[in-house]
């Protein structure tokens, strides 16, 4: 029944490692997002994909690479992890049609990444 799911929920890893976070939505939405929420609870957009195409790519280090194999999935791969990457990463989805009114986003449960 879960609308937006992410795996894993927790990820503890060492600096320099490469890791991936997976996201899937079963809402039939066309647009998916990755957000980073830091320790101060500030939620900041990283990427947005619409129908598997990259729409938004914020000022994110190129160690972060999103991949959307189909419109129900948006995975996030992170190379050479750094201490500052520690945060909660949220995936979200919405039913957006370019040029029409914005829609609310549905968030996944988050992945807490800790880099030691």
């Amino acid at each position, binding site marked *: 029944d879960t609308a*937006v799911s992410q795996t894993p929920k927790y990820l503890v890893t060492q600096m320099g490692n490469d890791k991936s976070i997976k996201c899937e939505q079963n809402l039939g939405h066309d*647009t998916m*997002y990755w957000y980073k929420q830091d320790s*101060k*609870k*500030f*939620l*900041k*957009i990283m990427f*947005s994909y*619409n129908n598997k195409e990259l*729409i*938004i790519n914020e000022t994110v280090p190129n160690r972060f690479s999103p991949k959307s194999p189909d419109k129900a999935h948006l995975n996030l791969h992170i190379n050479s992890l750094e201490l500052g990457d520690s945060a909660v990463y*949220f995936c979200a989805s*919405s039913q*957006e049609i370019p040029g029409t*009114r*914005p*829609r*609310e*986003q*549905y*968030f*996944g*449960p*988050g992945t807490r990444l800790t880099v030691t």
Partner: protein
Amino acid sequence: EDKVVQSPLSLVVHEGDTVTLNCSYEVTNFRSLLWYKQEKKAPTFLFMLTSSGIEKKSGRLSSILDKKELFSILNITATQTGDSAVYLCAARGDTGGFKTIFGAGTRLFVKA
């Protein structure tokens, strides 16, 4: 630069109190303002506002938008301990695809 500013950053009230949370925004080609509630995990959607002066209500929660003053408020009446959460305000513009700018949130704690 686009930004969303929320106030207060934190608030402690007693059950039964009424609270007002504030959100001001500066977003290029503004399209909508959204409120989310975040408890322990994922933010959950509360309201989306696109027009000035039209109040949206859901139970004890209500929200209104002022597009002239670039401002929105979220009211919670007869607060309950279950209202304790971080309330996030977000604004959507019409540039940069589907970019949503979030505020830092207001952390509300309702004491029994």
